[in-house]
């Protein structure tokens, strides 16, 4: 492995026969050490074997071992000659994050914080088997939801028109085709719209801790330190998990059919122009839309909670959507490769799109600044708002990191902490905690994760997304 420049490392193509391109790792020495302790770098090398991959297989500063692809990985394959792989997206399709900005200062929220957190905890089902009894969707509506995305929910008065503009893809991948989704996936999805799920998913009420880039922050609606924000981190629930699982089976057969040689069964994929690739992409797009709608529905319940607790209409407090961005997704995009524009299948697995200023896919009101990038930290630490750059287009196909990444096993975390103690420590720091499971609280304790500040610093120093503001939790709702 050779060091290229600050925080950039190359795994040469000669490292292993079969590699189509080199691997590139963005990390400082400490993050790189963590990657060496599991199979992250091996998985980066494996991805470099995939047919039609361009430039390099990328591992981002938060890279850690995943299934097939590392988490914190980006790969771009030629649209015609390359492949698309469900393993390059992951089980939780469009696991992502959205940020709402209020016009309230922390001091206004503090006196009602416990009540507000309780109300949200009550209105947004979370934890094992979370489902909604009040919002069961029939199958026709579910088809519309997965094809139309956020606008379908706005039509149902569960969102504001402006919300649509501030979602990646405007909350709808038009490639969605409900006919490509199995009945099992639809059954799993029918009761889960507007639920948080469990594991590392969370909902936080936060305060703006520090502003690093005031002009960009202001454009995004972040005006001063102490301002209250709300962050929602979740994905496509059982619906997306089932679509991934269904299409891994399809791709396993495709690998035999098209005689693709793979270093790992979980890289199963299909060539871009085939029926299998097309079907997966259309079904995946449905799960992407489902996840956007899920976060939109949760937003609706958060706004209702503010109304109930503060007894005024939600828009009195702002509660505007800053942005909603995907962390697990495959897209068709155009990127510059050796001075040519190439149409590619871009895979972002545990990676955030980070488009630069003046890009047409950035919402009009943000276009002169760049796309907002939201990177959640571990429970009780801090989260980050960044902005995309033209360097990201040159170096990482318009992508950056997505989070902290675990470094301690769940069993180890449970040996070291117990839920009650974790909650107490957070409460001592003034953070209100409501959790569906004490076990999950222990497993998700902050020391089990890498330092998100370090991940963000590396991203900032390489320039693939730069810091705008740091957000600190004042209340946590946890599955």
């Amino acid at each position, binding site marked *: 492995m050779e060091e290229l420049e600050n925080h950039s490392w190359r795994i040469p193509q000669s490292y292993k026969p079969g590699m189509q391109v080199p691997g590139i790792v963005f990390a400082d020495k400490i993050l790189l050490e963590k990657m060496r302790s*599991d199979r992250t770098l091996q998985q980066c090398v494996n991805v470099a074997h995939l047919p039609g991959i361009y430039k390099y297989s990328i591992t981002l500063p938060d890279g*850690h*071992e*995943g*299934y*097939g692809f590392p*988490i914190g990985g980006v790969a771009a394959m030629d649209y015609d000659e390359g492949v698309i792989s469900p393993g390059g997206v992951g*089980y*939780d399709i469009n696991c992502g994050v959205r940020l709402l900005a209020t016009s309230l200062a922390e001091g206004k929220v503090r006196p009602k914080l416990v009540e507000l957190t309780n109300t949200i905890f009550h209105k947004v089902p979370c*934890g*094992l*088997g*979370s*489902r909604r009894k009040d919002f069961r969707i029939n199958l026709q509506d579910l088809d519309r939801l997965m094809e139309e995305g956020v606008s379908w929910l706005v039509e149902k008065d569960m969102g504001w028109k402006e919300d649509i503009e501030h979602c990646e893809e405007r909350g709808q991948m038009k490639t969605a085709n409900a006919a490509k989704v199995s009945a*099992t996936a639809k*059954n*799993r999805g029918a009761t*889960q719209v507007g639920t948080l*799920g*469990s*594991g590392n998913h969370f909902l936080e009420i936060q305060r703006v801790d520090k502003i690093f880039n005031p002009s960009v922050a202001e454009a995004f609606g972040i005006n001063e330190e102490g301002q209250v924000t709300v962050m929602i981190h979740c994905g496509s629930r*059982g619906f997306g*998990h*089932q679509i*991934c*699982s269904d299409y*891994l089976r399809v791709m396993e057969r495709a690998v035999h059919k098209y005689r693709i040689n793979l270093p790992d*069964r*979980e890289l199963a994929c299909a060539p871009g122009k085939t029926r299998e690739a097309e079907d997966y992409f259309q079904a995946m797009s449905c799960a992407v839309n489902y996840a956007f709608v899920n976060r939109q529905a949760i937003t609706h319940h958060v706004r209702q909670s503010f109304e109930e607790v503060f007894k005024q209409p939600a828009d009195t407090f702002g509660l505007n959507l800053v942005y909603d961005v995907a962390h697990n997704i495959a897209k068709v995009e155009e990127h510059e490769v050796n001075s040519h524009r190439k149409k590619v299948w871009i895979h972002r697995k545990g990676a955030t799109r980070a488009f630069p200023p003046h890009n047409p896919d950035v919402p009009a009101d943000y276009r002169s600044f760049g796309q907002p990038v939201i990177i959640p930290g571990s429970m009780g630490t801090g989260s980050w708002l960044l902005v995309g750059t033209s360097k990201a287009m040159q170096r990482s196909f318009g992508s950056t990191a997505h989070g902290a990444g*675990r*470094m*301690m*096993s*769940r*069993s*180890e975390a449970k040996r070291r902490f117990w839920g009650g103690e974790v909650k107490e420590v957070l409460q001592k720091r003034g953070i209100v905690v409501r959790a*569906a*499971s*004490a*076990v*999950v609280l222990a*497993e998700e304790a902050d020391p089990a994760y890498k330092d998100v500040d370090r991940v963000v610093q590396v991203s900032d120093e390489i320039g693939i997304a730069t810091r705008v503001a740091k957000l600190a939790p004042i209340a946590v709702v946890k*599955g």
Partner: protein
Amino acid sequence: MLRRRMCLIPKRRFQFLEHTADIYIAAYGKTLEEAFENAALATFQSMTDTDRIAPQIEEELEVDGFDEKALLYNWIEALIIKFETTYRVYSEFEVTSLSRVGKNYHLCARIRGEKFDSAKHPPKVGIKAVTYHQMEIIRGSEYVTVKFILDI
């Protein structure tokens, strides 16, 4: 020389192995059927406390797979789907047949459990999916081990 006979049968029906992000299970059995039963029990043990699940409702389940690993994957996935679509949790698993039919493997099982109630069944973590990652089916001389990872 004193030759001690190692106890090869694990005392536990399954155990959770170390894994950074997810749940890594090793389940044991005198037969492949029993190992599959214990794999199912371990799956529900990672969601809640299976001792507290009364085996009140009995259901039958059948799955296919083109090889043994695919059969294990499909068996665990079928149970995850059961939980999410019927909202039931299970504590007893009886694999009544596991055989090769032509090119495919086929499994029939009876599973017993009850409606999930978070007041009675302390919730742990939700499972997104079973994976092929580090999946192993090891036939020892005296018992079978199956290993697999649950994505959470």
